């Protein structure tokens, strides 16, 4: 294997833009129909994060839910990283993302986690207060992204690769 592979999972409430973020980042292999049928869609992307060898991120885009059922928990198995996605225009999605992180910790206590607060292009309509984000940054990395414009997306995945790297 030329690149070291790591499994990361995208978690977040319905409509926060997980799939759009993945679409922005990777060349898609499978149809999005899998999300509604199987509940997950897997893509991969090699990330050059400055190390000697690039890292291949195998991204499991898990269908949006505010909670994790048994099937979704089984999808998390073996994951090295969690990309939590929240919608800045809906504060409830931030709480859902934090809840999902707490649930997944029981299965993945060592997994790296990054919070992506999406829809930066609609920042004027954000409900999430900067103070809240500042407080969250003390416990986990928080990146503001826009799937529509591509702002912060690649940086988030590179940051994840960097944290998972040797």
């Amino acid at each position, binding site marked *: 294997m030329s690149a070291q592979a790591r499994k990361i999972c995208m978690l977040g409430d319905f409509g926060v833009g997980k799939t759009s973020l993945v679409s922005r980042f990777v060349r898609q*292999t*499978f149809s999005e129909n899998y999300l509604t049928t199987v509940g997950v869609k897997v893509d991969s992307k090699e990330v050059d994060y400055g190390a000697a060898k690039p890292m291949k991120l195998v991204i499991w885009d898990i269908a949006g839910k505010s909670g994790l059922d048994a099937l979704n928990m089984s999808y998390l198995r073996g994951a090295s990283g969690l990309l939590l996605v929240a919608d800045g225009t809906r504060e409830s999605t931030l709480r859902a993302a934090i809840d999902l992180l707490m649930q997944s910790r029981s299965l993945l206590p060592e997994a790296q986690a990054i919070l992506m607060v999406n829809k930066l292009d609609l920042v004027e309509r954000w409900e999430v207060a900067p103070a809240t984000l500042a407080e969250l940054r003390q416990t986990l990395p928080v990146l503001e992204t826009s799937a529509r414009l591509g702002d912060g997306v690649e940086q988030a995945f590179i940051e994840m690769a960097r944290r998972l790297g040797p």
Partner: protein
Amino acid sequence: MSDLNRLKELLLAEERESLLSAEQRLTDLERRNRQLAEALPGLVRAAPQKPMTKALANPVAAALGSAVHENRSTIVDALFPVIGPIIRKAIAEALRGLMSDLNKVLEYGFSPRGIRWRLEAWRSGVPFAQIVLKHSLRYHVDHVFLIERDSGLVLHRASSPGLPDLDADAIAGMLTAIGQFVRDSVSSGGGDSLEAARVGEHLLWILDGPRASLACFISGVPPDSLREVLADRLEQIHASFDRNEASSSAETGLQESVWKTQLDPQELVAASAALADREDTVGQKPSRWPLLVMLLLLLLGLAWHFARSERWEARVGQVRADLLSHPGFLLTGMESEPWNSLVVHGLLDADAEPVAELIANVDLGDVKPKLVVDGYLSTADPILQKRVARLIGPPAGVRVTVRDGVVDLSGKAGEDWISANRVRAPWIAGVRSVNWQVAPITDAAQAAREALSELSSKLATLEVSFVREVEPGADGMAQLEAMVALLLKAEELAEVAGVAPKLQITGYNDAPGSDAINARLRDQRAQWLRDRLRDQGVSEAWLLDSVNARSSENLAEFRGARARLDIETEKP
């Protein structure tokens, strides 16, 4: 301008202008339409191909659909010249395929290889088509993925050369996810897993291990031995995990090279073929038993058949021997089906004994022999003797013997009989010659014979009864005296007639008593009568050997004794 026109001008000027304008527009529109219709083909041809095709795709499809609904016959007529060749081509292709299949069947059916496969199918009980498929199928292992079971990450991948590149990590991840989804959705106990999926001629096999799964993408129809090989490889890989726990990931170069060898698609196909051949070789040994058993059964069956046939032939041979030795019967043929039917053809003389009973006495199982007999004249001496006797009816004093077709007639007979039969005897069928030695009987002798015969009849009515063992009853002695008188007279008449009658004395018993006692009683009573006759003067020559052998039979008639005179006996 009249007032009316001026009034019209004032009132309708605006409408008239509108009307003129509308007429003008209509004229212009019609003109433009004509121009457009003339220019349209040229415009379409001149238009860029791609946007024009795209623009026309939907309307043309909709128009075609509508035309199929509304003007089906027109469409069919229009397509007919196209559909015909297409159908013919399809049929030709199908026939070509059929011919190819037939060629294969003929090749498999009559070639040594085909015969070998047929034997294999017969031995193993597997249908011939499956055996042919097993030996002739072609398949390819396109991709092999070794997937970490929990994460779905690819530990190793191997693909056949010449195939397009694919995102192995994404595919392995989705396979893992779908496997988990199927397990979660379908498996009730949770222990089952997705093992295979098929789309057309493409097949996906998934073999799960505790720590890693093996996904194999196959084109064609693989044999079961390939799955065995894959399972074996997966076990080997797990064993290497256990041996080298610290480097169980794909990072170890040594492990990578081992996996590269173990999971090489061509190597897997070769190992599968080798395993199938080994199983065939191993499978032949136990399968000889049915062959041996069948051979044994065949031998036993043949032995039973021959033994049964032999038994039948022996019995039929006995019938043949009996028939051949039967006087007056000429065996002309026998039709025999062992233990099924027996037909005897032959010729039987009218004077011969019947042969039906002779055949019926032989044990032929359930077979009822059929006898087909025609008449004929036998020249065998016994039959000829019976025929002569039947035709000439010799009197008591004439003796008839036949030897080699020569008839000897001797004794005494009346002159009438002699004159009648002397001429007739040589004409009897089968008689070669007649040796005539019959002397004529005189009148005195004839009268004596007749008197003797009458006397014999009277003697037959007499009997001596006993009250107990040999004690005569009330009229016993009277009967004895009557017997003596008749016998003394008979002696005189016999002398004149020239005959030597035979006297027979018989003792009898009644029902009670054992056989031994009754036999003794009969003997005693016969001897009592003989002794009394001797005492009364009857000739000793007549009494010698006169006690009848019947006295030894338990007749159970009455307590007594009788004397009989057989005058047909010729005088020596």
